[in-house]
């Protein structure tokens, strides 16, 4: 079967799955009402988004320089910084840091999905716990995330109840979401303190201070990056912005368009834990991690940044708003995509996937209706990117991204 036929078959299977459609219709309704509420309550966000778009546009052009600068800042904070040019490089660097037989607690990270980090570490004989509730459900179901922020968006509560009942051997009522959340808390709580290593991504990184900004609500990232003795972060180079001030703006716009007025937690992490409380002698490894490692991932990003139209994919804040506006995503969820979803996902597939056919299949699934662009705080012109990507794919003109 050709790549396209197989892709289409999976897409149509999802489209005929009533469970996916049910879960998504609930998710979409709730997103629309929440995001409108968040934007009404904090109306300055819309203007701030324009400012952030300009910050991102500048930063993407300067990505290489900003990465070097961030590495220096992190090193001077007594952390360790690395630049991985390919997915394989990143896996090797992290694989060497981790070793085998370790217990790892992990925050949700699309970048780690991109390079298949969890599977890689598991193969090397480590035990890895996804601690984001959605991601935990996905891991236990042996499924793939279907939304960048809500990975289990396609799974209705009834199915979660059934899954948790199976794991705990205790019958969970299909309607009691509170009970499901409590079950996950019990299953994961001790792991944070037993873990050898905590892992995370980052929503945005300030190059001047080497600070990772992590946005979350569950508290799992706080624990996973705070409790274990070692913290390893994997961050795409497109997440870098020049200053801490820029990073705050990016973060606020991200969570607002991700439908939150204010998330419960925003962590700023710049180095390992330290104290100067005894005779002002700075000593590393206080209550938090003793070691702090940041791996910056290129994996085609610097190439993509050279294309004036396709580079918009790198502006993406991963707020996930576009996905709720996509009519195809509403019935197929993440099957419209590969590692990343919908139209933007096609551009990512072109740079990170081995298969050009895959990128083409995703690109031709985009309706080019443009509603995602209306929602997008960065006004990413997905229809224009699709036209450009298809042109690259079939004509191979001045090809950078699709090679």
């Amino acid at each position, binding site marked *: 079967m050709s790549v396209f036929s197989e892709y289409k078959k999976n897409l149509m299977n999802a*489209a005929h799955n009533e469970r996916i459609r049910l879960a998504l219709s609930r998710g979409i309704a709730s997103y629309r009402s929440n995001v409108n509420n968040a934007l009404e309550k904090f109306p300055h966000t819309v203007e701030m988004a324009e400012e952030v778009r300009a910050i991102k546009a500048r930063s993407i052009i300067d990505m290489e320089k900003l990465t070097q600068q961030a590495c220096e800042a992190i090193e001077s904070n007594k952390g360790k910084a690395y630049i991985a040019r390919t997915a394989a490089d990143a896996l090797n660097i992290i694989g060497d840091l981790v070793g085998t037989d370790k217990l790892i607690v992990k925050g949700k990270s699309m970048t780690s999905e991109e390079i298949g980090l969890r599977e890689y570490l598991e193969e090397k004989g480590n035990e890895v716990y996804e601690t984001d509730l959605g991601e935990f459900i996905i891991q236990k179901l042996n499924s793939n995330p279907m939304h960048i922020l809500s990975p289990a968006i396609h799974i209705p509560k009834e199915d979660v109840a059934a899954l948790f009942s199976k794991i705990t051997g205790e019958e969970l009522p299909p309607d009691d979401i509170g009970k499901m959340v409590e079950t996950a808390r019990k299953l994961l709580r001790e792991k944070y303190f037993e873990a050898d290593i905590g892992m995370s991504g980052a929503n945005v990184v300030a190059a001047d201070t080497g600070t990772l900004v992590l946005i979350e609500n569950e508290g799992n990232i706080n624990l996973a990056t705070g409790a274990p003795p070692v913290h390893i972060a994997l961050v795409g180079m497109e997440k870098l912005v020049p200053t801490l001030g820029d990073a705050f703006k990016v973060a606020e716009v991200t969570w607002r368009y991700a439908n939150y007025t204010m998330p419960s937690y925003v962590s700023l992490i710049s180095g390992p834990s330290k104290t100067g409380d005894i005779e002002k002698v700075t000593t590393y490894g206080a209550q938090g991690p003793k070691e702090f490692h940041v791996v910056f991932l290129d994996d085609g990003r610097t190439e993509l940044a050279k294309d004036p139209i396709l580079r918009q994919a790198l502006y993406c804040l991963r707020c996930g708003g576009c996905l709720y506006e996509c*009519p195809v995503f509403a*019935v197929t969820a993440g099957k419209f995509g590969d590692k990343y979803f919908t139209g933007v996902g096609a551009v990512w597939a072109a740079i990170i996937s081995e298969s050009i056919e895959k990128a083409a299949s995703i690109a031709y699934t985009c*309706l*080019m209706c443009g*509603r995602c662009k209306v*929602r997008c705080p960065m006004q990413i012109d997905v229809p224009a990117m699709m036209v450009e990507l*298809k042109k690259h794919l079939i004509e191979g003109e001045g090809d950078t991204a699709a090679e």
Partner: protein
Amino acid sequence: MANKKLVPPGLTYLADNITGRDNILGATKKEGAKWAKDIAFSENNDTIFFAGCGYQYSSELDTLMSLIRTIDKSPISTEMTMRLAGLQRKLGFDAGSIYRKVMTRGGEADALPLISAVKVLEKIGIKPGYLGEEEPCCGGLLYYIGMHKEFTEHAKSAYTRLKSKGVKKIIGIVPSCTFTLRNLLPDAVGENDIEVKHFCEVVADNISSLKLRFPEKVKVTYHDPCQLARSLGLIDEPRRILGAIENVELVEPEWTKGEFATCCGGGGGFEAVFPELSNILAVNRAKELIETGAEIIITHCPGCIMQLESGLKEMKVDNIKVLDLAQVVAMAMEV
């Protein structure tokens, strides 16, 4: 790396029709111009009415799409769509016209939006020319599917043909053709001396000169076509027109209207590649629209009309009509 094999089969078929037969369906040009046989157009082509493939060949499109859908649901699916196209080319056999006869749908009803639009223009004092069989296809689909060399070539030829007919101003009605003529053609050709407006802009600008009253009191909803609302930015105009019609009450979905309107599932040649999925999306959009309690769905694009009709049919809803805005205005003029 350059590889046309990456273009899904349904699209190469439509693209070949544009480059080979100068219309999206591979029909003969005579079929397209038939709707205008009883209309007296101006001999002067300063301002022309651009009818577009969508409306002119809508009965062909409709029957061809039901054929493609049937094939798509069968196990042989995609590859077969391609074979159908090859067969049609080789034998010179026109699937559209054959199936049109089978389904006994005349061209008359499908041409109503066009005939209505010309009547409305006449009422506001505009008597445009019409190029008939010589109207070029806008070629927009070639652009959208990534065949830019073919599009540029086609655009140059279309532009030259328009210029040679003395065209200075175009009033378009198909949203995507209008956007292509207004934005993509000048970019490809490097010249920009034909003014392009959409029908609803022209009507909205002249709305005060029309006295409009719909034959009976109706609740209507309006579906924004993607290209009209998000590419051409014409969101307010259709609503201003509807607001000026006595007896018409506009009821709209809470979220999915204007720039946030949901696509009917027929965008960018999507329906030719994913016909079954396209049908699911048509049903979803039709549902959003009928939940408003409207008795008539009004839209302003031949693709949307086809999609929404098939969505309603799939849901077995037969008491709700889908009408083009031009038709509604013409109906309201006659009272």
